[in-house]
């Protein structure tokens, strides 16, 4: 964690969110969300989804994760919750899983289709092309994000209603690497590895807003 003390959003207290915990850098996301003040459940099966008001899909190997989502019978329950408006944050492999379309993926790769993007895997190349860089992200206060890209994907097609918050240059073309649509936020890189909490804070604000709306509706 490089950014020092995490600012605790006023809204995070009492929120309960999940991190998909089948494979990947689960621990970093759990640590960051815990430091931001919420209760974190590790999600390995459909029953684990019941109590959570938002879901984080971590970095990892997207082909492995999509297979494990299938065998854990999580694909349909997750799609259903996402369709019903559950906020989500996906980093790297998590971004691939949340997209509607995977370019260059395996034909049987499960996608959750929560944000209308066409995503290309390993877009920068192999591990030798993995890199760190400072990145300006629209709508974030303060310094640029220090972004760690590891065998990272990029967005090649942006659907209707999707906001592009940051892009990088790749072979002369500008490619989106942070996108947002409704309450779904995705990044090609790993803020959980560099320790920058600002995308997680956006996610938690979405969770708080959705939870507040639900509560108001139930009491009306």
């Amino acid at each position, binding site marked *: 964690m490089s950014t020092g003390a995490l600012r605790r959003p006023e809204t995070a207290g009492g929120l309960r969110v999940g991190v998909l915990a089948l494979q990947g850098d689960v621990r970093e996301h759990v640590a960051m969300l815990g430091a931001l003040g919420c209760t974190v459940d590790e999600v390995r099966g459909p029953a684990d989804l019941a109590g959570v008001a938002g879901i984080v899909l971590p970095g*990892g190997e997207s*082909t492995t994760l999509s297979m494990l989502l299938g065998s854990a019978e999580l694909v349909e329950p997750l799609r259903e919750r996402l369709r019903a408006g559950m906020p989500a944050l996906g980093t790297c492999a998590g971004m691939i899983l949340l997209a509607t379309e995977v370019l260059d993926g395996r034909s049987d790769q499960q996608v959750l289709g929560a944000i209308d993007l066409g995503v290309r895997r390993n877009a920068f190349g192999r591990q*030798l092309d993995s890199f760190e860089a400072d990145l300006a992200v629209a709508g974030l206060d303060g310094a640029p994000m220090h972004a760690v890209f590891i065998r990272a994907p990029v967005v090649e097609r942006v659907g209707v209603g999707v906001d592009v918050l940051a892009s990088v240059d790749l072979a002369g073309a500008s490619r989106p690497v942070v996108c947002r649509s409704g309450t779904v936020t995705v990044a090609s890189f790993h803020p959980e590895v560099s320790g920058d909490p600002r995308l997680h804070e956006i996610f938690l604000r979405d969770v708080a807003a959705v939870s507040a709306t639900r509560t108001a509706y139930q009491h009306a």
Partner: protein
Amino acid sequence: MTTDASSRADSTTDEQGRTTGTLRVKRGLAEMLRGGVIMDVVNAHQAKVAEDAGAVAVMALERVPADIRRDGGVARMSDPALVEGIQSVVTIPVMAKARIGHFAEAQVLEALRVDYVDESEVLTPADEEHHIDKWAFRVPFVCGATNLGEALRRISEGAAMIRSKGEAGTGNVVEAVRHLRTILGDIRALATSDSAERYAWAKRLQAPIDLVEEVARTASLPVPLFCAGGIATPSDAALVMQLGAEAVFVGSGIFKSADPPRFARAIVEATAHFRDPEILVKVSRGLGDAMPGAEISTLATKLADRGW
């Protein structure tokens, strides 16, 4: 990760401000492989079987350890054509092995753009005193270790991932358990030591004091700790994960079993759900014969003794 990203690693920054080859990027890929299975494969067909089964990465080599053990002779880095053939058919990371101390083989593997180099005791060592200076490379390295001192010496040389050695090619998990318990037991003991005791720890472990201090403070290695050497069944994978391994390497255990695609899939499921015996029952039922195992005391060569 408490070590600064601006390390001794051979990192370079381009005109767009992108820095490659940093410690954080090297260790980062290992972090992403956590909870997964890295499978030994000897050809493109096996690589596809591994990817289809949900492997997080493959290790490209000419012979699995069981065959290296059977054939004897000098075991070397794989033919570049074999590595390239495997790289061309899978989208997951591809690792390959270099001999201990053989930095020229590692240079070849870096030029082949493999995703990780395994400086491995499974191959015949090229240097009986020196391991590779891994800081001189942009490609990350994984190294084996049988105890905490060995792990910290490899990390001080630049390893970005440690795997407990076990005894490769035996299908016998006993050495993997011994090495994991030794490493993790010493980490637990070190974490409760006082500041004076840490100097004695550094002396006993023959490891740099700064790394000893870091382990004492964090109660974990500075890099991910995976497990290798003798894992042959889904329950073996669950055992080492519960002991504290963060991912597993399976060498001969998949393609020397009766039904490699099913074994591969079952070990992937067991590694992901390592605390769930119900899932272990499901994936283990009717799986067929695991690879034939070997009693450690009957071995002519203990591969784990290679490396220092």
